[in-house]
Structures are given as structure tokens and as C-alpha cells.
């Protein structure tokens, strides 16, 4: 049986799709058969971030409607054999996702995969609800600012009350906090909430802190999940997060202001 992980936030633009791509790639790199599904029907992005936008034939909605089978729609990643992408439909809207349809697709995927990563759309409406309903684990992506934290908090409330696990009185979804776009410099200036502030408000286990980094934008533009950029701090932070998710005990890095060394301007810091 696969474990279903939803990547969610409530707020848009905080890095859900980047995180979905990075975590899915990280899990697959460690040998776990992983499928990543784009639930953002109508605003699909995951295929771009994964760099497979030119290989999309069938999509998630086609599979739900029975117009294609799951194997026709899954796109195998060229960099990692264990990773498959199920893209969203760009021409439909979120109502095309039905609870039964999504359940059927996840059920089928769980036979052949170890992990299913669900990239949730922003908001708390139907699309987001469908993405989280069947989840076993949830990664709540949050930026260190008050509105993002509040939206994450709202999403956590929904996770604990409107999921299938909640409805069936099963053990609750395991919730993890992933802080993205973290800038220790701006925290020091008081322009951003600190890791501890966010942790205290949300009272959650911290899966990782991803520093604000140009590498993320570069990775998105080139269709390479940022976790593959092993030189970058963001890539390393995502790699740590995957390790922690799998039970490794790793210290959090990139929480303090980088010391400016003599050579750092030359080396690009």
C-alpha cells in the first residue's frame, strides 16, 4: 500500500508545486516508487516544474472519466526511473474531480507505488479538498509571514476534520510544517517571522526550512526540480526534508545569517 502525501497550504504562491516536485524527486531518488499528481486542474504547473510539459498526452481528468487508463496518463521522469508524473488537465475545472474518481485513481496507484504525492491547488475549496481528502500525511507549506501562517492554520483545521481519516475516525493525518522562502537576514531585521514564531503559532513538527534562493526560480524555469541542484542551499534543504520525512534525524541548516567570508563575493556566496 502506498502512503499518500498531500502538499498543501491554503495560500497561493508559497511553493507547493516546487515542494511537490522536490519531495517526489527526493523520495524517488532514494529508490521509492513515487507518483506525483497535479490537482490544480485548470491551472496546471507541475508538468512545467518537472520539465515534462511536452510529453503530456492524457491527464488526471481523462483517467477519472475513464477516457484513458492510468498507465497511459502517467509520464515517467527521464532523470529517475522510480518517478512518475500525473499531470492535471488545463482545459477543465476543478469540478471534474469527483471524490469517487479521485479515490479510484489513488487506489489503483497505491498498488504499484510506495508514495503518492498530491500537489494541492491553493484555497480551501473543492480542488484543495479533493487533494487532501485521502491523505495519510500532509506537508503544510508556509512562508514566514502572518497571512500565510494563518491560512496554513486554517488548512490544518480542515485536515483534521474533513479528511477521510477524520470521517472514519481513523488515526489523524500526520502533519508536517515546511517553511519556505526563509531569509535569516530579513528575520534579523524583523521583517519576517522566525522559525520559532511560526512553530509556536502552528505547534507542528518542522519538516524543513527552505531558504529563499535564486536556485528555486532557476530550477522552475528550466524544468528541473530544485532538489537536483545539489550545489544550492535550497536543494540541500529539500534533501534534508526528505530525509527527515523518512525518519532520519538531521539538524536544520540555513537558519542563521551566512558569514560573509573574504572569498564569498568571488564564489557567489
Amino acid at each position, binding site marked *: 500500500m502506498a502512503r499518500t502525501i498531500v502538499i498543501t497550504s491554503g495560500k497561493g504562491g508559497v511553493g507547493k508545486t516546487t515542494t511537490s516536485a522536490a519531495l517526489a524527486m527526493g523520495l524517488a531518488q532514494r529508490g521509492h516508487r513515487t507518483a506525483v499528481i497535479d490537482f490544480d486542474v485548470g491551472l496546471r504547473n507541475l508538468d512545467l516544474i518537472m520539465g515534462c510539459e511536452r510529453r503530456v498526452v492524457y491527464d488526471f481528468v481523462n483517467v477519472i472519466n475513464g477516457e484513458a487508463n492510468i498507465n497511459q496518463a502517467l509520464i515517467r521522469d527521464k532523470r529517475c526511473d522510480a518517478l512518475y508524473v500525473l499531470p492535471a488537465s488545463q482545459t477543465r475545472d476543478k469540478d471534474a474531480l469527483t471524490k469517487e474518481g479521485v479515490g479510484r485513481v489513488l487506489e489503483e496507484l497505491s498498488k504499484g507505488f510506495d508514495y503518492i504525492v498530491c500537489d494541492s491547488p491553493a484555497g480551501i475549496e473543492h480542488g484543495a479538498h479533493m487533494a487532501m481528502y485521502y491523505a495519510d500525511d500532509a506537508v503544510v507549506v508556509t512562508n514566514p509571514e502572518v497571512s500565510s501562517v494563518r491560512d496554513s492554520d486554517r488548512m490544518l483545521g*480542515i485536515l483534521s476534520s474533513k479528511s477521510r481519516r477524520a470521517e472514519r475516525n481513523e488515526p489523524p493525518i500526520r502533519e508536517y510544517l515546511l517553511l519556505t522562502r526563509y531569509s535569516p537576514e530579513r528575520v534579523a531585521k524583523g521583517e519576517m517571522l522566525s522559525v520559532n514564531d511560526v512553530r509556536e503559532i502552528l*505547534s507542528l513538527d518542522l519538516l524543513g526550512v527552505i531558504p529563499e534562493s535564486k536556485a528555486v526560480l532557476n530550477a522552475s524555469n528550466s524544468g528541473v526540480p530544485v532538489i537536483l541542484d545539489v550545489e544550492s542551499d535550497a536543494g540541500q534543504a529539500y534533501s534534508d526534508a526528505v530525509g527527515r520525512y523518512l525518519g532520519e534525524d538531521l539538524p536544520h541548516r540555513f537558519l542563521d545569517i551566512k558569514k560573509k567570508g573574504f572569498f564569498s563575493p568571488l564564489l557567489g556566496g
Partner: protein
Amino acid sequence: MLFQANFPELKDYLDPMASHPTSGVDSPKPAFELKAATFTLPVIRLLEVDMDSVADQLGGKVDQAPDFFRNTPVVIDLSGLPAGAGRIEFPLLVGLMRGFGMIPVGIRGGTDEQHEAAQAMELAILGDAFVRRSPTTREAPRQPTPAPAPASTRPTPTPVRPTPAPARPVAEDPAVASQRLITRPVRSGQRVYAPGGDLSVIAPVSNGAELMADGNIHIYGPLRGRAMAGMKGDTSARIFCQDLQAELISVAGHYRISENIPDEVKGVPVQIFLDGDVLRVEKI
């Protein structure tokens, strides 16, 4: 805001239910009779959900005729609200009306969601049929609510949306609804009500979360949301809290918003209680 007359149709609904004690030989002396009666109640027809402007204007009305409202049962009509008007702050509204001496008894019209919120405040849901027959609301397009069963004054819990969201009376969290001890964080947007008793929370209460209890409320953790004790008017109810950062606190309808809570009691253990008409916040 409008003030409307009564709804005579009520009689049609209650008449078939009226029963008379049987005069059998062996039956004991009747302790009560069940009868139907028609009352004329003032109706407050809400036209917007902003409680500040409702408070202002209602205050003006009450000033004109204070005696008219004293201990008067009042019905809140939601049929005049535009679609998608936002959430109605029933706790505020009820507190406000009680403050003016009115006794809010029920609502009519509105959506399923609003009905749930009203039921959480122990307001009766008066049948939708009354609204539909009422000439004053005929021009206002109403949301598609299911037709109520003829003998029932409560709307059937048929979901309007395709997603079968279970209709629950109070809290979003089913595990939380009937319990009085909460061990997981109460998140933004969640509401927890402890009818008829105390509510204890041993976890943080986030901004935008609401705690309600007919008795006391105990929070062993930071309170960043709202806490309303003494929901049924128990003025001896208290709120105990380990770390007060609340948006709003209230006992029996007397409330304080964050702005009116002194800084020296914020972030420390406090108790909150009514001293006459004054809501006091004291360090403990």
C-alpha cells in the same frame, strides 16, 4: 433594517399538532395541555453582516423606544442578505441584542451554513416556508434551499453542493462536537461548543478559532482566537487562560475585543469574569 409584522401562517402549522388530553376514566389528572398559539414578534431583517453598523443603527432604534425592546423576543430574518454576504457573527449579534434587552429566539431564511451557526447559538430555525409566502421577501431571489417537510419547522439537511458535506450542528470537527475536552490545537476557522457545561482545551487556540461553552472555559495554552463563556446567559461563568492573546473574550454576551484588553494582562495567566456589567480580566 426593517421591522416586520408577525407570521400568521404559524397557526396553520401548529393547528394539526394541537392535541387535547383524553378524558379516559383511568387516566391521571392532566399536568398540561398542548396548545397552539400565535404570537406577534418583531423581526429584525438583516441587510448586511457587518455587526458594527448593525450595532450603531440598532442602538439608535432602541434609544427611540427603549421600552418596546425590553425583554422582547425577537426573530432574526436572514432572507434580505445578499448572496455570499459572508459569515454572520451570531455570537456578536446575540450578545448585542441581549445587551439592548431583546431576547433573540430564532432565525428564518438563510443558508444551511447560517442555520448551523444559528443552532450553535441555540437559536430556533423557523421554517423557510414562512419566508417564501411572505410578500415582502418575494422580490428577493433566494438561494436554492430544499423545501422543508410540511410538519417540520427545521430544514432538511440535504446538502446543496454536490460534495456530500455532512450537516453538523456546531463544530467542523466531528470528534470535537460532542466533547468538552479538546487535546488537539483548535485551528483557525474551527468552532468548538460545549453545550450545557465547561470546555477545557489543553492545546493552543489559533487566531480565527472560536470556543463556546454554556459554563466556564479553561485553556491550558495560548488563546489567540475567541472564547465565549456563559453562552446561555450564565453571568457567573468564567474564562481561565494560561496565555491571553485573544481576539475576543465574552461572558454571557458581555464582550471585549483585543483592542480593549489591557497590555499588562496579555501573555500571562488570567481569569475573565463578570463583575456586575463589567467584564474583568485579572492575573492569576
